């Protein structure tokens, strides 16, 4: 579980300091399905970056499973990203010269998993997301929905506890977007913590809890009742 206490983040220095997060308190338990919403400039991307260890808070305490991660150095942050977080991006961000299987294997290269095991795990996950017949296709040979499935398989490959998805359906048509949301819902049912950053109500509606940010503060935190 992750706990954020009075997290602030500002950019710039001196008189040009721009505060982006102004004291966020948030607790997300294991296995939750959460949407983070808010207009652009509300600080939701910054919050996601901090949760995902891509960025460090200016102040406040962020603890993962009871451990404060503030003092982590860059190498430890890379390790936290590698082991605990699976990222899914709006623009997929697949490596264009690698086929689907190699893309899925990438995080395992950085955690030092043997080649044989990498291939096994990548293949199993591509099968899970329904792409067993697309394993050796390059991203350019895949549709948007298929690319996002590869990205999800890649997010899962190191067996992280948290899936962090930034506008995962933003570049997809609504039908494909719905399929992706169902896939993410399924992962949540299997016990993964899934956090989705979105500005679309329909997407947020898939989740169990909606957190709304405005001007760097949480203004709403409600359970979704089906």
């Amino acid at each position, binding site marked *: 579980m992750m706990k954020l206490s009075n997290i602030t983040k500002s950019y710039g220095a001196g008189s040009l300091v721009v505060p982006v997060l102004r004291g966020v308190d948030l607790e997300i338990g294991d296995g939750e399905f959460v949407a983070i919403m808010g207009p652009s400039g509300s600080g939701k991307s910054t919050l996601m970056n901090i949760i995902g260890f*891509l960025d460090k808070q200016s102040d406040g305490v962020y603890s993962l499973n009871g451990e404060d991660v503030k003092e982590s150095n860059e*190498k430890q942050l*890379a*390790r936290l*990203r590698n082991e605990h977080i699976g990222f899914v*991006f709006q623009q997929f961000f697949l490596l264009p*010269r690698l086929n689907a299987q190699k893309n899925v294997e990438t*995080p395992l290269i*950085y*955690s030092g998993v043997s080649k044989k095991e990498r291939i096994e795990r990548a293949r199993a996950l591509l099968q899970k997301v329904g792409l067993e017949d697309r394993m050796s296709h390059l991203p350019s040979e895949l549709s948007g929905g298929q690319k996002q499935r590869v990205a999800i398989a890649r997010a899962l490959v190191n067996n992280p506890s948290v899936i962090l998805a930034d506008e995962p359906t933003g570049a997809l048509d609504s039908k494909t977007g719905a399929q992706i949301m169902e896939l993410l819902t399924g992962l949540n049912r299997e016990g993964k913590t899934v956090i989705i950053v979105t500005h679309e109500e329909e997407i947020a509606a898939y989740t169990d809890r909606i957190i709304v940010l405005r001007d760097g503060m949480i203004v709403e935190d409600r359970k979704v009742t089906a």
Partner: protein
Amino acid sequence: MNIWEGFVVALSSIWNHKVRSILTMLGIIIGVSAVIIVVAIGDGARKQLADEMFNTDENAVPLYFEQMEMEENGEFIWVDPPAVSGDQLDQVKEVPGVKYVLGTNSGWGSMIHNEKNADMEMLGVDNQYFIAKDIKLLEGRRLNTRDNDSYSRVVMIDSLTRENMFKDDEEAVGAIIEIDNNPYKVVGVFETTLPPEFQQLDDFSNGQMLMPRTLISMMFGAPEIDTISVIADNPETLFDTGNAAADKLNELTATDGGMYIAQDMTEFVEEFDSFYLTITLFISSIAGISLLVGGIGVMNIMLVSVTERTREIGLRKALGATRGQILGQFLIESVTLTSLGGMIGIGFAALITAVAAMFLPFTPIINPIVVVIGILFSSFTGIVFGILPANKASKLSPIDALRYE
């Protein structure tokens, strides 16, 4: 990611940018191949020089007559070496360590046979020559002591002359040939000792011919012995033996004009070596500049590559790559690029030297040490000029990199 995988990734990245990679590697290719070619040609020339100087007989040392006074009243004076007789050489042969003493002379003449004409050099020998040298008799007989004693008008020709001047079905042994309008009888044919590249017809090399040295002296006006060389029992003490032989010869021929000395051929080789070292250093410094410029090209292209792949770097970091791993990836890529350039340079050098071997009078020798240094140095260039771009890549912040358009 282990180094081998990084290498494979780097190769595919280079392959995906073929033209760019080749252009980038050009400086490295030129630098490495230039050094290898120059050293190969130098080594080949050096070996040829050494072979010729030692007359392919590393166990022989020539005795030269060195004048004491070169000038008199500002005029250059030429002192004839004292006449040396066969008997004196026989005495020199008694010096401990001396195996053989060869006394020869030579003459030039125009040979006519079968209405063909050729300028020939005749080497005047005695029977010692056949004992000391490995002369393979193909037809007829060798020259002997009696030929020398009686000034017999006989010659031995080599296989090349036989081929050039005689008809295939013509009997060479017993034939009468004309040299400078005088008749001589061919008594034997020996296998030519000319190296293959000289076995061609031109104005200077038509083949070899042996005559009794007394005959050369009589017919062509040369001293009976004008070239002396000593062959030692033990090659290691060749020059000591040569000097002892020269001392003996000086004692026998006693003259004020000068003295015989054993010419240490290694001096010539050393002189050539120092000349060749200068050339090599000069070319190497040019090659070094080429490698430097090539390295800067590599750095430039790697910086472009880092910028182009900013998002890839951000993504890899998001997926858990550490700074060290990103640094390693780009460093391996630049090292792969320059090493590949080095290897292409070696291939290019091998090609050039192979082609050059067809035109040069000697065979260039590619030095494996220089090849290894070439590979190491080109890899080293990749490290030196790859550090900056790789470091830049590793320092990118993942969020900035992911947002990069």
